[in-house]
C-alpha cells in the first residue's frame, strides 16, 4: 500500500460527494477548495496538508464533501486502508475527540 504522485490541474475534481473513500491525499503543490453539497466553500487546503480522510474518522466510507483543485499542482495519494488501520487502534475516548474535530472540519458544528 504505497503512495503515488499525481499531477492535479485547475478545475479537476479530486473527489466528489458520495464517492467511496478509496484514497487519501497530501497536497504538495497548488491549492484545493473543499465544497459542501450547496457548492459552498467549507475549507481550503494548502501545501503539505493531508485531506480526504475526515469522514473515515467518523466511521463513514463515503465523501460528504467535494474537493476541487483551484490552482494546479501535485498530490501524493495513498490507500485509505492505511488510515482505517491506524484508526482501529484508537480507544473510545480518543475516537470521540477525533469525531468532534472531524465534525468541525466538515462544517457540521
Amino acid at each position, binding site marked *: *500500500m*504505497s*503512495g503515488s*504522485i499525481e499531477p492535479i490541474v485547475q478545475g479537476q475534481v479530486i473527489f466528489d460527494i458520495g464517492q467511496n473513500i478509496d484514497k487519501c491525499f*497530501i497536497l504538495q*503543490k497548488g491549492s484545493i477548495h473543499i465544497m459542501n453539497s450547496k457548492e459552498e466553500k467549507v475549507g481550503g487546503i494548502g501545501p*503539505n496538508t*493531508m485531506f480526504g480522510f475526515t469522514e473515515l474518522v467518523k466511521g463513514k466510507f463515503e465523501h460528504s464533501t467535494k474537493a476541487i483543485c483551484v490552482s494546479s499542482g501535485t498530490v501524493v495519494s495513498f490507500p485509505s486502508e*492505511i488510515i482505517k488501520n491506524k484508526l482501529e487502534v484508537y480507544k473510545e475516548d480518543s475516537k470521540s475527540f477525533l469525531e468532534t474535530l472531524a465534525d468541525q472540519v466538515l462544517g457540521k458544528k
Partner: protein
Amino acid sequence: MSSDFDFGNFLDLKNQVILKINCIKLFQCLCNPKKSQKDISLIRDNILEDPISKSFSGFFDVILNLKLDNKDSILRAFPHLNLMIKTLNDNGEADAEILGTKQKLKENLSDFYIRIMDKDDIWVISQIHEFLESESDLATILTRILDLEVSDMGIISEVRDLLENKNSLAGLEALLKKLLSDEDRGFITGEERRILLDRGVKESFVNLITKESLKDLTPQNLLEDKLFLISFSEEMLNDKPDFIEKITENGVILTSTGAESKDGFVFLVLSKNEMSNSFFENYDQSITEVI
C-alpha cells in the same frame, strides 16, 4: 519491496528535505556515473534507508535496482528522480543544493552535447533539461524525437549539432516536424487529417485512421474520391455473408470501429472508382456517403 505509506514521516518537512537533497545529489552523480561511483553507492544506500522513499514503491524499486554496470537501470532512474525532486517540499531548504547542481550542469551542458553517441545520451540530456526547467520545451521535444525510436546515426548527429546551436529549440522543433511527417506508423496528422475533417468526417473517426491505412493513397484520392460510412450489425452478415468482401473489393477501409449499438460496427471507406461509387450508392441502405 516497500512498506505502507508512512504519512507521519512524509508530513515532516525535514524528512522531505533530506530525501530531496539526496535525490538531487544522485541525479548529478548519475550524469557522470563513471566519475562518481563511490558517491553513487553511498547516496543510493541513504535513499534506500530513507523512511519516505519506502512509501513510494515505484521509486524505491528503481533505486533498489540501480546498478552502475547496468546502463538501463541508470537511465530508468532519471525520470523518477526528477519527479521526486519536483514533488518534495522543502521550505527553501534545498534551494542551495538545487541552484548549485543546476549551475554545474549548465556549465557542463556543451560537454554533454559533444559526447552524444546514441539515443541514450539524448535521453540523459532531455532529463537534464527537465531538471533545469520543469516541463522544459527542449526536454519535451527531445523525448518526442526519442519516442519515434530513432537509431539512425545521421539523426543522432543532427540532434547533437542542433543542441550546440544558439537557437536549438527552433531547430529541434523543425527536426521533430520533419521526422513526424516521414513517420509511417501511428495516426495521421497534418494535411491528411485536415482534408478528412474538411470533408466532414467526424473527428472521432479521423482520430482512428492510421498512416498505414493510407499508404497506397495520394492526397488527391483523399480529396476527391467518394467517402462512405457503413454502419451494420453482426446479424447483417448472416444475410449478406460476402458483405465485407464486397466492401474491400470496391473501397479502401480507412478505419473501422464498434458502433454505439451492441454488436454493431462502423467502417469508413474510400471508394476506388466510378463503378465502386455505384456499388456503394446502391448495395445496402446501411451505406451513406460522407458529404
